[in-house]
């Protein structure tokens, strides 16, 4: 659960047609964003529902940096008003995550940034962004050997020789 601090209503305008949210990143940057933009995040939506129940507005503290948060906001802004099946809690889960050209360009970032974005998206419960990031990671390891996968994603081989060849041998048949 995030840490929630009370804020003054004058800090975060909460009335009117365009309500704003105050998001606080782990590096203590305050980012004001329209609630509508972040409605794709189930996590944020649930927080807002909580605000409405208590009639109090809060800043939402998030456990990732402003750099990552801004990327997520950029994604949400791009798809503002768009219906994405993956984000619909009432829809059946899609069989395969769709390929969206804009997402591919948006996620053309280095490995660590990609992993930070997917963790943030998972925390914020933005399924469409998690799916796109997962696809990008899958693309990075597609057709690679185990050694190449380790190198690409920074993983060490921690198998014993016996474990490495179990639970099944590498050979088919």
């Amino acid at each position, binding site marked *: 659960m995030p840490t929630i601090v009370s804020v003054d209503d004058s800090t975060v305008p909460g009335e009117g047609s365009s309500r704003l949210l105050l998001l606080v990143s782990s590096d203590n940057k305050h980012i004001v964003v329209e609630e509508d933009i972040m409605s794709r995040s189930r996590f944020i939506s649930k927080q807002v529902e909580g605000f409405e129940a208590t009639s109090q507005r809060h800043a939402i503290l998030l456990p990732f940096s402003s750099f990552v948060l801004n990327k997520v906001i950029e994604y949400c802004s791009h798809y503002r008003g768009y219906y994405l099946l993956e984000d619909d809690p009432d829809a059946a889960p899609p*069989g*395969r*995550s769709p390929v969206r050209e804009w997402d591919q360009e948006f996620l053309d970032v280095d*490995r*660590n940034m990609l*992993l*930070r974005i*997917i*963790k943030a998206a*998972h925390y914020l419960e933005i399924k469409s962004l*998690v*799916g796109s990031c*997962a*696809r990008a*990671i*899958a693309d990075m*390891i*597609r*057709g*690679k*050997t*185990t050694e190449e*996968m*380790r190198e690409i*994603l*920074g*993983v*060490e*081989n*921690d*198998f*014993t020789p016996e*474990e*490495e060849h179990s*639970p*099944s041998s*590498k*050979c*088919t*048949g």
Partner: protein
Amino acid sequence: MGLDHATMQDDDSAQSFWKTALNERLSPLQESNAGNPSRRDVQDALDAEDAVLRDVLLSIRSRQNAFSPIGTLPPEVLAMVFKIYADEFPPESYLTPSEGSALDPWKGLAWVLVTYVCRRWREVALEHPSLWRRINLEHGPRWTREFISRAKAIPLVFQGQALFLASPNPVITELLHANLQRIQSISVEGNHHALKAITNALAILAAPILHVLDIKQFYYRPTPDERVTLAHISAPRLTHLKLDGVQFMWSAFPMGNLTHLYITVEHRPAWARRHGGEPIFIPGHDKFISLLAQMTRLENLHLSNCIPSCPTSSINDGRFIKLPHLAALKLNGATVDIVDLMRRITMPLTATIHLVCSSDDSSGEECLSVLPFITGRLSATTGESIRFRVLTITEGEQFESLGFRVRDCCVWKDNGNAQLFASRAAGEVNLQLDWGNPDFRDVVPIARRICKALPLQDVEALGVLGQQQTWHAGDWVDAFRSCRAVRYLQILNAETSSLSDALMQTIREDDSAGLELGAKCDRTMDRMLFPKLQTVYVEGHTFEHGEPIRDPPEVFDAAFLQCLQDRKERNAGIQKLYLVNCDMKVEFYQAYQDAVVDLLGWWDEDFMSESDEEIEEEHE
């Protein structure tokens, strides 16, 4: 022993610690050596130290992984990565021993390799049974058993091409029998030995959750002994049934729940079997109509060479087949039988229709008998929201058949290089007609008649995919004079010099041929063929084998360039011209480029195909 804050910040302290620890551990061994213990004892002791240190090292690596960026991903997210990878990169097909020896043995495992990267990845993969539910039979009994085990209790999907299984593998057969109750989908291709093992299992055991059954026999012309027959199946939830080259007893199936039915009993059309071949099982006409009438939930119906002949007494017997949910219909058979079925089936106007009509009549007249039905349907359809904007005519390679597609393109997209034709998914075709007959010698007149019969005034993109037939200028004008909205024209493997002539001619309204040969007296664009033409895409054209054919000789394929010039003068200039995989002589390349730039003001090397680039390299 844990790492305190000081040691975390001091590499030297780690080195000092481990050196001290090693000395403490190994010095007594050296002293023992001096005390003359057996060398074997010392070696064993060192091996023991080595094993422990290896474990320590692996433990450190595991901790490194846990703190790495990928290591902190929640397991469900990592599993999603694996799922996407598994869906798009399934284990490859079966490797024969000879191939296997030459190939990397890791390669065939595809996504399964993630379980060999590190302990955590393996744990995550093994803890998500949905990753293992798709079982490829080609990987042999060992992996089949492993996948079934790892999938735990979730429904299974069996698939694969069992081509290399010369005889049914007893282990796989046993696994199939043992797990039939939890199999949701079976999709296999194979020879009769492999497939009979599956059909036999289905005949004797219940498949309570089986939704999809897709079986295809490889052999093109199986002998009676090789013929696979599905005699019975107990699958109350079956919704998708696809049988190709496999006979089945129609009345033994629970048909009422089917939403997708694809039956290809025999690959060869009737006319190809007229000189022999074993009989195939098809129910009588009356029974056939009754069975189809029961399938009221059908969304896709594809019957190929299994439509029983309609006896004369049954024509116009008033029996209809109501398919209110049908989205796609494909019928392949004798023209008279298709006409009979089309007369009976009622379906939504938006349903995709693909008819493959065969006939003994080499003139094509009999095949055209389906046209009145189609045009009647089209006129009803076009009165609604559907307007046909894309037309593709295909000359078949194998049987000199003629394919004909009309499709609606709701989202019109000017993507420059006319790739709108590239998408030929069946679902996008509103109407597709194919006529086939080995005796057809000239399909162009038939195509002309079809085009004239259909409402093509809204067609904006026209494609002609030729193989052998030549479209003369008169054919172009006669067939497409109503297509006055065409903006995109794609020509594949077809002769373009006649098109050049056609594009320069003037259409005369009162002439049945629609063409004043050689006349260019009317200089207005209103009476031109394709007056709104903007883009021409030519692929696979040999420009008269690279020879200049007309004046001026320095210009390559002068007829076409003359056509471009002519239309430009008539204010109907073509704005984009694409030449892909066209064959031209190097010495004419520059001349052609200069001419096109002069006429169109546009030449973009980026769009050049590989063959064009080769030509350019050769030229340089």
